[in-house]
């Protein structure tokens, strides 16, 4: 419990700091800490697979992607906070309040009688290791029960990756000429 509170406090301070910092590079760096904290939070919430993804993608790849974006654009300019966006603050506060109000209707964390835990989840938990032979239930759900769905996602991501590579590849070739 106290771990939850400390982690949330860390997340909040980091988020506020990222929004206040004026150096883009510093923001990218602190964002790495934010990802680390996020992933620790996922571990605390028992979502181990999500934590794995966040550790690899959030901390590793996205920091490097942002760095390459910075190095491609060559942007080392400091941002200046000129305007005071009161309207935006009000809008986000309102949205946050609405979301908080919405969560009050949701079942509690790890509630065994929640609708999501009554439908097919018990079946997966009991049968999947015999049917598929993979010890991790999440993997067998993703790769077997929802295999077509995952295949579609992979195709989309693959296409996006090819698009990005073709865009970036062109610029580097032009630079070499």
């Amino acid at each position, binding site marked *: 419990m*106290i*771990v939850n509170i*400390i982690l949330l406090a*860390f997340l909040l*301070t*980091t988020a506020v*700091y990222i929004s206040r910092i004026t*150096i883009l*590079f*510093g923001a990218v*760096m*602190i964002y*790495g*800490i934010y990802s*680390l*904290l996020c*992933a*620790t939070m996922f*571990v*605390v919430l028992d979502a*181990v697979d999500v*934590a*794995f993804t966040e*550790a*690899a993608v959030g*901390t*590793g790849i996205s*920091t*490097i992607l942002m*760095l*390459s974006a*910075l*190095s491609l654009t060559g942007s080392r300019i400091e941002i200046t906070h000129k305007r005071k966006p009161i309207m935006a603050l009000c809008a986000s506060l309102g949205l946050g309040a609405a979301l908080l109000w919405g969560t009050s209707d949701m079942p509690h964390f790890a509630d065994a009688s929640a609708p999501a835990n009554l439908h097919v989840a018990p079946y997966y938990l009991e049968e999947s290791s015999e049917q598929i032979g993979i010890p991790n239930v999440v993997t067998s759900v993703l790769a077997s029960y929802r295999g077509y769905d995952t295949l579609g996602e992979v195709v989309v991501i693959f296409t996006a990756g090819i698009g990005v590579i073709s865009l970036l590849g062109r610029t580097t070739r032009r630079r070499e000429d």
Partner: protein
Amino acid sequence: MIAATLIAVMIGMVLLLARAFIGPTIFDRILAINNFGTKTVIVLALYGFVTERPDFLDIALVYALCNFIVTIAVLKYFEYGDLGHTGKQPKDEIS
């Protein structure tokens, strides 16, 4: 005792966050973040033991790997200004 150690490491994280926020140079931030990552590895390992599920150690391992790669990538960006650089030509010839 494990829980107490967990809390102690988290207090250490607070100190490092302070260093990451006040800087003053960019390298201080990178240093603080690198050390923060190491502390996250410790926290994950300890947390697995507090909740009596030490299987979570795999994540700690991935963290240790990512932490190292990110630090090296960031420093490479700083040294050469380009992540695709092979490190064979000196800095001045690129830009």
